[in-house]
């Protein structure tokens, strides 16, 4: 069972019911659950969207798109049914926050989905979990069944004449399916290859109908935003970055875990205060701030860095999924880069040339390079390849592979050079990868 952690600086909004048995629907209700949904049912779509816009809640899936705005893009009138899609594919290395939400507070996801449905005028929501999360899917399925039994889902939710249904869905192992249009393909029983955009999902999404897709954490946050009021929620965070965020701190820290901190909280403090500092008293070498696809940051870059979408963006990286991966000074960056790229090589859907061939080539080069068979030209080539993938691929996975690679080569060129001239890796034992 994943360990729960806590720290005084935490502001527990989304995590407030964690560890309190809220997977049980009666317990969830006892803790104030489903009140937000009822309120939304009374207040109506425009009010909900307005609250959401005021809250400055931005998507927790990675891109940080303002949630209220996203919902407002869905056309009011539509020939085809509209859908709500909850993205629980959580596969970005370094990220395990949705895991805890499904485990400890499944009803918040259901309640958030209902509210999203009310906001856009949808009657059907899907909650898609990655295939590996089977035990969490079972928890979600139970929660959904309980919500049906209580009449919170169904033809007449909460005794109203409004209909809302939820279907849970399992993936079967594919990071790319986390991309919104690929997820729709997967949910339609197809290969997880993204779709051509435009049209965007808000207009043409699942089964061709207008669709809102949100990350599970985003959705789980929604009932709290409604309960607190958009304004109060916004006040917790930093400008244009409302509320809190679940930061999953992993890697070389003393107390890894998922911490809920206000947006804009300083990254250095996250590592050194909240997570107890670098493990074994070692030195911090680098930190990946928001999941494996975000460019690495150096210790000097995080001194005053506030963890919100805008500040991390300005620092040349991204807030991403909030997965903070901490790397100590005994770590080989080349090996880390190799492990990162081999993930993207494995997960590239293969649809477009730059990503399919670029990740494969990078993995081959880095494997050879790390094994001590590199040449000086390779370093330039690696940078050249990554630069030429960037912005050229069909979906952001190509960028997700290129950006961290560029970060590693640019910021740790010296360490790459140390691998040259037949010198073996100064740190690592692991030079082979079996994942292909």
């Amino acid at each position, binding site marked *: 069972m*994943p*360990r729960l952690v806590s720290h005084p600086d935490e502001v527990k909004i989304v995590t407030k019911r964690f560890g309190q048995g809220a997977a049980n629907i009666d317990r969830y209700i006892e803790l104030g659950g489903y009140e937000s949904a009822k309120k939304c049912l009374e207040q109506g779509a425009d009010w909900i969207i307005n609250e959401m816009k005021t809250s400055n809640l931005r998507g927790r899936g990675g891109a940080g798109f303002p949630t209220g705005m996203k919902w407002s893009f869905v056309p009011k009138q539509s020939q085809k*049914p509209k859908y709500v899609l909850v993205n629980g594919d*959580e*596969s*970005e*290395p*370094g*990220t*395990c926050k*949705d*895991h805890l939400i499904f485990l400890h507070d499944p009803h918040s996801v259901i309640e958030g989905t209902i509210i999203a449905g009310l906001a856009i005028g949808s009657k*059907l929501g899907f909650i898609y979990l*990655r*295939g*590996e*999360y*089977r*035990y969490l899917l079972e928890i979600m399925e139970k929660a959904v069944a309980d919500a049906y039994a209580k009449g919170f889902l169904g033809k007449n939710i909460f005794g109203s004449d409004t209909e809302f249904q939820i*279907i849970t*869905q*399992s*993936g*079967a*192992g*594919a990071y790319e399916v986390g991309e919104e249009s690929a997820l729709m393909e*997967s*949910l*339609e*029983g*197809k*290969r*997880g290859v993204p779709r051509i955009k435009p049209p965007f999902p808000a207009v043409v999404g699942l*089964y061709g109908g207008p669709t809102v897709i949100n990350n599970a954490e985003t959705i789980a946050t929604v009932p709290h935003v409604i309960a607190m009021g958009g304004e109060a929620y916004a006040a917790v965070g930093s400008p244009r970055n409302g509320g809190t965020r679940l930061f*999953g701190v*992993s*890697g*070389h820290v003393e107390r*890894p*875990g*998922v911490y809920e901190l206000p947006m804009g909280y300083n990254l250095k403090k996250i590592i050194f205060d909240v997570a107890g500092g670098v493990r074994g008293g070692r030195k911090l070498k680098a930190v*990946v701030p928001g999941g*494996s696809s975000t460019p690495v940051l150096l210790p000097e870059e995080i001194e005053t860095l506030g963890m919100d979408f805008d500040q991390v963006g300005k620092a040349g990286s991204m807030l991403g999924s909030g*997965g903070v*991966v901490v*790397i*100590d000074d005994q*770590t080989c960056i080349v090996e*880390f880069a190799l*492990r*990162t790229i081999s*993930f993207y090589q*494995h*997960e590239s*859907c293969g649809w477009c040339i730059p990503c399919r061939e670029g990740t494969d080539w990078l993995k081959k080069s880095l494997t050879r390079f790390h094994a001590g068979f590199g040449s000086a030209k390779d370093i330039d080539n690696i940078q050249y390849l990554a630069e030429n993938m960037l912005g050229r691929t069909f979906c952001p996975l190509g960028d997700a592979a290129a950006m961290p690679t560029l970060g590693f080569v640019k910021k740790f060129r010296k360490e790459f050079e140390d691998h040259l001239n037949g010198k073996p890796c100064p740190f690592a*034992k*692991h030079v082979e*990868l*079996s*994942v292909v």
Partner: protein
Amino acid sequence: MSVETMSIFSPQLAARLDALVAKYPVRRSALVPMLLYAQDEVGYLSDAVITEVASRIGITELDVRNVATYYSMLRFKPAGRFNVQVCTNISCMLRGGYDIFDRFQDELGIGHKGVTPDALFSLEEVECIGACCWAPAIQVNYDFHDDLTPDRVPAILDQYRAQAKSEGKADHA
């Protein structure tokens, strides 16, 4: 052809799959979970599984294969009864994921995608399984084991050996 009467699946699974296709606005949406559930029972996606899934959904076998080969949890060869999946992705790697993987290799005497001769275990190095904050982590079938050290590996294997024994007994009882 009536799928029900021809099914290669257990009555329970067949019933579950019947319910599954009826659940969605579009039948085909059942495809990915159906493949996974079928694999859970049969062990892998045999030709017979592909054929039956295709007819249940009402698409071609080619379509099923196109989709099935996309997803990394789906396999086309039998795995062990307990499939050990060791995450070596970044968060786990930093905390010794490869040591865990090595220990499993040593204990089981097999490598990546290997199956033990008694077909009890198979081993796989996998990508991030969403347990990064509790790294290093593994999954045995769908069970998570986290905060691991190599020393805990033998006990984990023993746990499944024992489970196999008791289930084996239960089967015979």
